[in-house]
């Protein structure tokens, strides 16, 4: 029987061990050095446990996803952080908003940089979310069982556009004022509820203080909350749908030879009293028992390093852009004279070009049909062929229709950007 240590000595010992104990209470695993610890690290860390413990090699191929979904998410994180910081100096008031923009440029430390980052990350997010949508379509990844996650993705794309639209009213410069005047007027062309939506958005009959406040609340509270929720659902469903899509031949064939006289019976017939564990509910190829060969690798370090790499690249790109190019700020609002020509940001110029032919068809009809087609695509295109391959020959028709829409929009954007001059007249840029 050993004597207990003197109270003073044991107190000193625990004091000495305090840093180590605090550390190991936070991080319950040492840096992994074997597969068990690799699994445990992914599994027990709050920020890592959204990932599977093992990930398919096909999902890690850079040329399959180009990391577009991840880049979108990291841009959203950059936008959230820079946006919250900008909120410390911004006032949603028609008399102050523009001056606050000038303050950001002139007298706030890092003000220009943060505004630039917010602007370029926003433009980047619109572009990358759209490219991500293209990737998912062109690889046929919206097919069963991923139909609903595709729908969530389309909603995320629309929310991204709406986020950027509500964002560029806030500087209260000429672009802001006339873009919102036109944008809310387009909403007014929607059938039946159009005028009510327009009135709700503007908080009155013309664009003014009420509209600025409403767009501010939408931009900093309502839409980010919805976007965050939808992103969470989007990520959750990726896991529940069995990870990223991949072609059938990405997995080694496991042949299960049926017995000659085997018949299919329900488990409940054989064992009516049996209760099943929750593991029995998990769908997809995630639960593996025994030594079935597969093409997966441990998420630690393979997936996490890839994600870190994408994050560093994304942040660096935004930083470099923000150091090189200043976010534009036009003249303060002049409600009497629109700039001539009054042009929207590049990603809405295709829409602007289309509404210059017809307000309803360009602003509501054609975009509405396009969005509707996107939403129902996985429910109309039920063939399981061509999943997980870029430009699969089995998907020639669907891909051709999709690319036609995309190219048409790009052409409209190019016309709107380079071929439209004063009074939206056709001009040649050379």
């Amino acid at each position, binding site marked *: 029987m050993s004597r207990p240590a003197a109270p003073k000595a044991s107190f000193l010992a625990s004091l000495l061990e305090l840093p180590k104990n605090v550390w190991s209470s936070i991080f319950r695993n040492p840096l992994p050095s074997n597969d068990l610890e690799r699994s445990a690290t992914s599994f027990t860390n709050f920020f890592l446990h959204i990932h599977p413990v093992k990930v398919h090699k096909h999902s890690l191929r850079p040329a399959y996803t180009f990391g577009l979904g991840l880049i979108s998410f990291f841009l959203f994180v950059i936008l959230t952080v820079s946006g919250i910081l900008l909120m410390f100096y911004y006032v949603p008031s028609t008399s102050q908003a523009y001056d606050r923009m000038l303050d950001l440029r002139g007298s706030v430390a890092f003000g220009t940089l943060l505004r630039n980052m917010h602007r370029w990350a926003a433009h980047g997010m619109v572009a990358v979310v759209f490219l991500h949508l293209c990737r998912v379509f062109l690889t046929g990844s919206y097919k069963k069982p991923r139909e609903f996650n595709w729908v969530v993705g389309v909603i995320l794309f629309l929310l991204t556009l709406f986020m950027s639209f509500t964002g560029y009213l806030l500087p209260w410069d000429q672009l802001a004022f*006339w873009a919102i*005047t*036109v944008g*809310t*007027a*387009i909403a007014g062309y929607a059938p039946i509820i159009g005028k*009510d939506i327009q*009135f*709700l958005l503007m*908080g*009155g*009959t*013309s664009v*003014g*203080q*009420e509209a600025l406040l*409403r767009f501010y609340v939408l931009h900093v509270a309502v839409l980010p909350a919805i976007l965050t929720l939808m992103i969470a659902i989007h990520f959750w469903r990726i896991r529940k749908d069995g990870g990223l899509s991949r072609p059938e031949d990405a997995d080694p064939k496991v042949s299960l030879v049926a017995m000659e006289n085997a018949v299919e019976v329900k*488990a*409940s017939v054989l064992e009516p009293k*049996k*209760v*099943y*564990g*929750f593991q*029995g*509910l998990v769908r997809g190829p995630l639960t593996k028992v025994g030594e079935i060969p597969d093409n997966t690798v441990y998420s630690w370090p393979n997936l996490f390093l890839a994600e870190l790499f994408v994050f560093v690249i994304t942040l660096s790109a935004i930083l470099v852009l923000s150091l090189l190019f200043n976010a534009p700020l036009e003249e303060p609002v002049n*409600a*009497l*004279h*629109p*700039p*001539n*020509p*009054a042009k929207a940001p590049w990603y809405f110029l295709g829409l*602007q070009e289309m*509404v*210059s*032919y*017809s*307000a309803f068809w*360009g*602003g509501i009809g054609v975009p509405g049909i396009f969005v509707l087609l996107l939403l129902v695509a996985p429910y109309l295109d039920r063939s399981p062929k061509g999943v997980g391959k870029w430009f699969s020959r089995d998907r020639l028709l669907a891909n051709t229709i999709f690319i036609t829409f995309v190219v048409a929009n790009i052409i409209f954007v190019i016309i709107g950007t380079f071929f*439209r001059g*004063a*009074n*939206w*007249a056709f001009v040649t840029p050379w």
Partner: protein
Amino acid sequence: MAVNLKRSSGEDAEGGRTSRRRMLGWLTGAGLFGSAGLSAVSNFVFIKPRATYGQPQRFSVGKPEDYPSGTRAILAPRGICIVREDSKLAAISITCTHLGCTVGAADTGFACPCHGSRFDQDGNVTGGPAPRPLPWFQVTLAPNGEIEVDKDIEVSPGSYLTL
């Protein structure tokens, strides 16, 4: 942690006869979803303003002498163009009927910088996406001799106030 595969809804001890339970289930659902729906609707009622701030729609624009014959004066803050020809006077809207931009004066009438709608001197559409001509507003001569424009009352194009 176990899941029972046997369905628990439905049959009671006698088998069948679940109408009361079903009824209560329906009522509970209707109550919950109904309240949720009503709350959602009331949110929209809340954010729909009852009173709005705006400029008066009926205003004076000065005396007829301020507009000599042949004048086409754009009063941008009011959103109108005052047209005077000899003893005839009219007020034409300068808010584009397409998507609400302010049109500017052009050689042939009016032109919109946003989407290229063009109008002639009387506000009729001559090109671009505008669906309707620029509306004309009622112009009257007030007892104090000033011209009064009422943007709430549209008049047919070509109806001038004769001084």
